């Protein structure tokens, strides 16, 4: 599962986690920072996206500041139905991430909706589709968020 990355890939991933310049030819700036050419770094980023090493490349929106809402939620899914329930949950566009975890609450996902009211509707759809109660964990306070990881 761990990808084969060379030193330039790693420098590129680390640099791009810190930001991307708002200039007409941003890949020139990135190339200078990592010691390569604009063509090479762009090609590498295309490949890293295609192979899934990068799950996203672009603006990371703070959805609450745009009027929307993120809510962490969980289900206790019977093992025999796990794949079917995962497919039903993942089919909803409001489900941004979904992880299997080691607990009786074994499916943890993030609901992202354009309005705060959209969350209740998404939860109702999941409960109707799965027949399972959704445990919702809206955040009360954010103490720290920085998902950058050294490549």
């Amino acid at each position, binding site marked *: 599962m761990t990808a084969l990355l060379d030193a330039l890939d790693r420098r590129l991933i680390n640099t791009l986690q810190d930001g991307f310049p708002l200039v007409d030819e941003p890949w020139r700036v990135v190339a200078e920072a990592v010691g390569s050419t604009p063509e090479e770094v762009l090609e590498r980023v295309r490949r890293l996206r295609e192979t899934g090493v990068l799950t996203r490349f672009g603006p990371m929106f703070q959805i609450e500041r745009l009027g929307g809402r993120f809510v962490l939620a969980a289900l206790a899914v019977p093992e025999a139905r796990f794949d079917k329930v995962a497919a039903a949950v993942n089919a909803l566009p409001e489900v941004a991430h979904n992880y299997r975890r080691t607990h009786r609450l074994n499916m943890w996902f993030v609901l992202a909706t354009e309005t705060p009211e959209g969350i209740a509707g998404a939860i109702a759809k999941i409960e109707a589709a799965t027949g399972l109660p959704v445990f919702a964990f809206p955040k*009360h306070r954010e103490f720290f968020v920085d998902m950058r990881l050294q490549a």
Partner: protein
Amino acid sequence: MDSLPDDLDRRLVIATQAGLPLVARPYDALAAGLGVTAEEVKARLAAMLASGRIRRIGAVPNHYALGYTANGMSVWDVDDARIVELGEAVGRLDFVTHCYERPRVLPDWPYNLFAMVHGRDRQTVLAGVAEISRLLGGACRGHDLLFSTAILKKTGLRIGGG
């Protein structure tokens, strides 16, 4: 309170939520699609960064691909009177990538502090969790650690484009 995004901001969010175009001049490409100038696109993105509507522009790696195969969601039942002080202290630990206060769901779920710990192996995550436990001391009445064993979906947010 932030004002809601205007129409161009909204169209810019929709145009970029799946990612920036991977071309030599991405802001020109966005501008062409939106019928505005690249200067306007850059200015709008800069303003959204400054106001915090965009956290940052850049790459999100799949942490498994980078070798961070151990991803532990540590959850803690912390004295409500001390949650702010202790949540901030846990958030300052360098191995914690996210730290939030969330509601308890009693009786099933007594935990109100969530701290995500990523590591290249489970031992590293367990060592981090032990450090959080020492930091919380007697203010913590119990905790649990939920390792992720599969990414079932990871797409980022999608708002309506219709």
